[in-house]
């Protein structure tokens, strides 16, 4: 592959996690370095269906913003990890668009790393389109690690067709103000969508997660697990809607949002809900917000584990449920290590490089 051997001109791209054998793409303020932007129509993730009992035609989503005509197009290779390193240099990116397409049977893996190049205020607005079809199984990790002045608004539009599967993990290590809007459509029989999120917040950070997931075909599976660890004055807002259309017989859908409030001033709000128009389905949803248990803490301290170490153990345990969902071992270990360092209040800069990407 051309881009695999491609060596970027800028020093700024030097920072990369050493993921052996990964194919690397470099994106500079939304424009691929060394490759052209591709013109492509917007991915259609809308669904509309009749609900006979209500004599009504339902449309999801109600409206979608237009997307730029051109996109950074990523066609992953079977069995190889693809890493997209996206660098922000100018303070404002109005609209970036990344398009990931997997159409053939096999296992695919993509990691998206977005990072800023300095401590000034960056504002990013981007769309990530993911289309999985033809029996493909894609593992996608989106890493978000930016400075506390940054504002990042992402729209993930996901379409999973017959017999295909997408597992997406969004790991927000650090950021200022993040909004992750996810719209996912299961459009063919036996499609699967796993959405996992882990967000670590402190200071004045705000993270919004807004998921709409539509089952519009029979025998599909969706599982969502979003977990947050909040300290300082940080805020998290989660809204999640799972829609099962009349075509979605034998649907299995689970959604959960759990938050660990580490400080008294952190706040989490959570609103998961289900809208079901089919009768033969298994669905559940729930949310919890808890704090670190005093009894557990005392038990650990009585074994000589200092209070700060005990809190980190508990937080790591809480995060583990999401990190375990990352299927590629090298990536999972890398992420667990970054999460641990972040929980310890160390910089999440990897040892190999001088900057805070993933």
């Amino acid at each position, binding site marked *: 592959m051309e881009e695999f051997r491609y060596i970027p001109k800028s020093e700024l791209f030097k920072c990369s996690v050493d993921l052996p054998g990964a194919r690397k793409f470099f994106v500079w303020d939304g424009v691929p370095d060394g490759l052209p932007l591709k013109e492509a129509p917007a991915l259609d993730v809308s669904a509309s269906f009749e609900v006979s009992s209500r004599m009504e035609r339902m449309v999801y989503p109600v409206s979608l913003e237009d997307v730029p005509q051109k996109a950074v197009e990523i066609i992953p290779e079977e069995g190889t990890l693809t890493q997209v390193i996206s660098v922000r240099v100018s303070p404002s990116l109005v609209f970036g668009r990344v398009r990931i397409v997997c159409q053939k049977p096999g296992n695919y893996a993509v990691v998206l790393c977005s990072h800023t190049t300095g401590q000034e205020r960056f504002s990013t607005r981007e769309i990530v389109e993911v289309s999985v079809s033809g029996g493909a199984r894609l593992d996608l990790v989106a890493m978000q690690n930016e400075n506390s002045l940054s504002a990042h608004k992402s729209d993930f539009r996901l379409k999973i067709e017959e017999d295909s599967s997408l597992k997406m993990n969004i790991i927000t290590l650090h950021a200022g103000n993040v909004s992750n809007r996810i719209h996912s459509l299961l459009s063919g029989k036996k499609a699967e969508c796993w959405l996992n999120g882990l967000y670590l917040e402190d200071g004045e950070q705000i993270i919004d997660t807004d998921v709409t997931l539509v089952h519009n075909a029979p025998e599909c599976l969706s599982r969502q697990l979003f977990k947050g660890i909040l300290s300082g004055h940080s805020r998290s807002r989660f809204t999640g809607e799972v829609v099962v259309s009349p075509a979605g017989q034998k649907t299995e859908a689970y959604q959960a949002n759990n938050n660990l409030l580490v400080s008294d001033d952190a706040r989490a709000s959570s609103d998961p809900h289900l809208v079901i128009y089919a009768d033969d389905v298994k669905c559940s949803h729930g949310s919890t917000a808890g704090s670190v248990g005093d*009894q*557990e803490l*005392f*038990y*650990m*301290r*009585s*074994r*000589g*584990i*200092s*209070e700060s*170490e005990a809190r980190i*153990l*508990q937080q*790591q*345990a*809480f995060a*583990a*449920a999401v990190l375990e969902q990352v299927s590629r071992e090298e990536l999972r270990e890398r992420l667990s290590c970054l999460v641990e360092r972040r929980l310890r209040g160390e910089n999440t800069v990897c040892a190999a490089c001088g900057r805070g990407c993933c």
Partner: protein
Amino acid sequence: MENLLEIKNLHARIGDKEILKGINLTIKPGEVHTIMGRNGSGKSTLSAILAGNSNYTVTQGSITYQGRDLLKMSPEERSWAGIFLGFQYPVEIPGVTNVNFMRTAVNEHRKQKGLPPLSAAEYLKLMREKMAYVEMDPSFSSRGVNVGFSGGEKKRNEVFQMAMLSPLLAILDETDSGLDVDALRIVANGVNRLKTKDNAFVVITHYQRLLDYIVPDVVHVLYKGRIVKTAGKELAAEVEAHGYDEFE
């Protein structure tokens, strides 16, 4: 010989309820003490205070451990100094594996002694050896701490942790409750293997049968927050035969 622990006129309460009303107790290295007493008499309260549980307020008296003021030490400092409490109700910690939990504990202890942390291989070797003390299956190590453990398995896990930390003063709060006869013998043998001339044990129990395996030097009866009688091993049999009415 110098005292390991000296409790003088200890009064303590939880909320505004006074539970301990003047405890006096002296323990020397190499001794095994047994405390018996009715439900609610304050045995677990005394244990919790020794381990540093801040839910209880000490209103009077003092505790000296190895010449130090114990009440000024945090729970972790007490552990580093050699105090171990086997909990009557061991706590479940979902998501933290037994192996991570104990490795962190062992390495924190080593750090205090100026020793480097154990490597994964060294730790596993030590762990296997100590698990064998209590005939615990190594598969427990990858499970969440006490999560889904049966009552008896939790108690074995307490003795395993004790073996890992080799304490100088171990307080076992009803470690025998809920154990079947075989487990009782295994746990008692585990305790006996750890016994040296330098460390001491406080064994809290309701049953004389444990004392067939772990032979105490003294037996105390705790009644309504006070130690009302101290005698030799025969006191346990007496209590079991006649109950606590005579102390009214």
